[in-house]
């Protein structure tokens, strides 16, 4: 059967299981847009290509399936680079199709020509420039394969316009037809490494599981639950792993790192065995590396061999898919315990003391904040707690980047995997609105709320127009502190309150009017007293996007905090937690 390259591309996307494409057309990709009309694909026309990229990411985060974005050459391609980089940092499976000028025009500085594969080499797992229409099915199949296997990531396929127009004979490749001689991700853990790890686990007195985003990528949440509960080891979940282990589980210690809670941070510092599962010792987690978990032996599981030993040398490095490794570990720990005649290894005195120590930290240093005064702007933490209480368990929470993101991660109680969508590695302001849109498209059955900052919102708000047009009822809570709040916090704490270029404005733009101009419903909450009513109203709207402008206390800071570059031992818990500590320790003394 003869097809054009463009038809073959669309059919290849369909064959790979694509249901939704986020994109925006232009000259070089024009031929590809024509067969979309006759295809099964739902195309969502974004208002900026960065939005297409983040929407594809949101879709992938929420569904586990690769997000697909399609843009034109030159400015279309460069506009999506930020989203590709974001997906690369957070290992998000994503396939990006870009138009390119005709083959013969490449290198001539043709209209809207950019060296797309060159520009995106360092922000994609791999990319391809198609030079023959006949290659399209194979390359698209390879692209999906590379994006979704091993350590997932974004890939890009650049298609010159004449290749889209050229004829080819349709076929569909088998995996054995792939031309990827250098790509063989290793998924199976080495049995000897597993046995060594199991021995350390059985012998450990103060173990902690350091669960990262790899748990979610490997769909290993259930395996983690089994492993943690059987061996009774507490779990911290990094910013990328929130939801991978339920927050209200007795073994869950919550988020570690720069803005992690005291117990999660301190348990890692004091542990004697750190079991890193799909986590990468990011500097936002470790603080000063040389002072991180100084007494711990490390078991490190990652599907990407380059992560092992990159930051911290592990006593037991295991290259493997997280789910397979955890399942093997669970088995091996049981075997090891029997062999060592220590079937109750988790019930020893040191382990008991460790659990008590952790409970004591939790009691002394819980996540608390000062409530707002009546009639005054709400506390951001209260907005998040109220929202959590008023939404279904499996609500998908999306965040922008800044203080609001940290509060969202700290104060939301995650109960299910794949209910948290955020930009961790790159920290991309403007992520939330398009990512929420993508998540809702992928999971239309779920309620999707985004917690966004007033600064972030202004970067990609135009995608609310997309949401209205496509009837994607996302809900956005702007925590409006009238500041680039996270930067303001650093200037307050580390630059002697010299505020430089961080003031925005509470009223400009008028978020309610702006939302209404984009076809959504705009609501405003002026004081802490009206949070519930407004959330109620927002929850009842199901046919269009809603934006709630929550006026919050601009002086509120994110605590705890480990100042950048310092040891996690130097964690600053902030005034509210300190006051709580004073109060309970006094009571304890009486």
């Amino acid at each position: 059967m003869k097809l054009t390259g463009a038809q073959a591309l669309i059919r290849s996307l369909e064959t790979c299981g694509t249901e939704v494409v986020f994109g925006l057309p232009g000259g070089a990709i024009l031929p590809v847009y024509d067969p979309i009309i006759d295809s099964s694909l739902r195309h969502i026309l974004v208002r900026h290509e960065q939005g297409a990229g983040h929407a594809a990411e949101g879709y992938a985060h929420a569904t586990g399936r690769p997000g697909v974005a399609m843009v034109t050459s030159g400015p279309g391609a460069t506009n999506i680079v930020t989203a590709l980089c974001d997906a690369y940092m957070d290992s998000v499976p994503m396939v990006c199709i870009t138009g390119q000028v005709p083959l013969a025009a490449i290198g001539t500085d043709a209209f809207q020509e950019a060296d797309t594969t060159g520009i995106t080499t360092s922000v994609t797992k791999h990319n391809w420039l198609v030079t023959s229409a006949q290659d399209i099915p194979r390359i698209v199949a390879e692209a999906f394969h590379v994006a979704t296997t091993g350590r997932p990531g974004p890939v890009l396929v650049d298609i010159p316009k004449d290749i889209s127009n050229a004829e080819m004979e349709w076929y569909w490749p088998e995996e054995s037809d792939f031309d990827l001689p250098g790509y063989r991700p290793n998924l199976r853990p080495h049995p000897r490494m597993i046995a060594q790890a199991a021995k350390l686990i059985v012998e450990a007195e103060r173990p902690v599981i350091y669960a990262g985003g790899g748990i979610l990528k490997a769909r290993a949440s259930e395996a983690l639950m089994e492993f943690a509960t059987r061996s009774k080891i507490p779990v911290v979940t990094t910013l990328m792993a929130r939801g991978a282990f339920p927050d209200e589980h007795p073994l869950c210690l919550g988020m570690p790192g720069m803005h992690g809670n005291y117990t999660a941070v301190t348990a890692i510092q004091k542990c004697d065995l750190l079991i890193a599962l799909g986590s990468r010792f990011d500097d936002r987690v470790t603080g000063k590396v040389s002072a991180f978990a100084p007494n711990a032996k490390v078991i490190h599981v990652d599907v990407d061999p380059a992560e092992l030993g990159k930051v911290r040398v592990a006593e037991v490095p295991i290259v493997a898919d997280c789910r397979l490794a955890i399942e093997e570990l669970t088995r091996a720990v049981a075997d090891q315990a029997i062999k060592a005649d220590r079937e109750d290894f988790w019930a020893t005195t040191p382990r008991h003391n460790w659990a008590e120590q952790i409970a004591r930290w939790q009691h002394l240093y819980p996540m608390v904040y000062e409530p707002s005064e009546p009639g005054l702007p709400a506390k951001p933490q209260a907005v998040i707690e109220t929202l959590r209480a008023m939404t279904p368990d499996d609500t998908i929470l999306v965040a922008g980047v800044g203080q609001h993101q940290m509060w969202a991660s700290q104060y939301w109680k995650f109960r299910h995997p794949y209910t948290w969508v955020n930009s961790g590695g790159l920290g991309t302001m403007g992520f939330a609105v398009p990512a929420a849109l993508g998540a809702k498209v992928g999971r239309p059955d779920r309620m999707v709320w985004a917690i966004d900052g007033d600064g972030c919102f202004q970067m990609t708000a135009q995608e609310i127009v997309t949401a209205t047009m496509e009837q994607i009822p996302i809900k956005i809570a702007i925590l409006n502190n009238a500041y680039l709040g996270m930067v303001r916090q650093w200037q307050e704490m580390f630059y002697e309150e010299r505020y430089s270029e961080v003031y925005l404005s509470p009223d400009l733009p008028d978020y309610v009017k702006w939302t209404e101009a984009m076809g959504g419903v705009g609501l405003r909450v002026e004081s802490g007293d009206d949070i519930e009513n407004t959330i109620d109203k927002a929850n009842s709207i199901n046919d269009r996007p809603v934006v709630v402008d929550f006026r919050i206390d601009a002086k509120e800071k994110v605590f705890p905090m480990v100042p950048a570059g310092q040891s996690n031992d130097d964690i600053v818990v902030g005034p509210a937690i300190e006051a709580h500590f004073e109060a309970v320790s006094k009571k304890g003394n009486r």
Partner: protein
Amino acid sequence: MSQKHHVLSVLVENKAGVLARVSALFSRRGFNIYSLVAAPTDDPRLSRLTIVVDVESAPLEQITKQLFKLINVVKISELSPDQAIERELALMTVQADGTSRSQVMELVAIFEGKIVDVGSDQVTIMMAGEPAKLDGFEQLMRSYGIVDLQRSGRVALPRLEVGRPRLRSVTGQVAN
């Protein structure tokens, strides 16, 4: 160059842009390339890059692991200096007028080089050999006046006596 260098023999797919990916990776990850030679192999689908890296610039293991993540990289053999036959080619144009010409020719003969071009007061010398030998020769020629120098960068293969090259595993497991 100190003894802290290592030679990576990297088999890559013979496709457009592969060299750019490799060099982009080195610069992005902050690794230093001392020399890099790219050439076809006996298999038309593959090329071999012989990369000399300064191991002080980054742990060698990180370099090989990051390299291996490139989809187009098929195989990496790490050759430490004592396990490798390393050779390099140099072309060198040297001042050699009436008085010095015979001395230069003598030295070329001692070092088993070859005069490949002769001008009225200069000669061009070709010399192949171990990099250290070329270093020594270059040093000697300096006093006569080096007009032009082009070195090829190293190529390397594993030494036969010690058996097959020790392939440092890039999967974290032990490969033999």
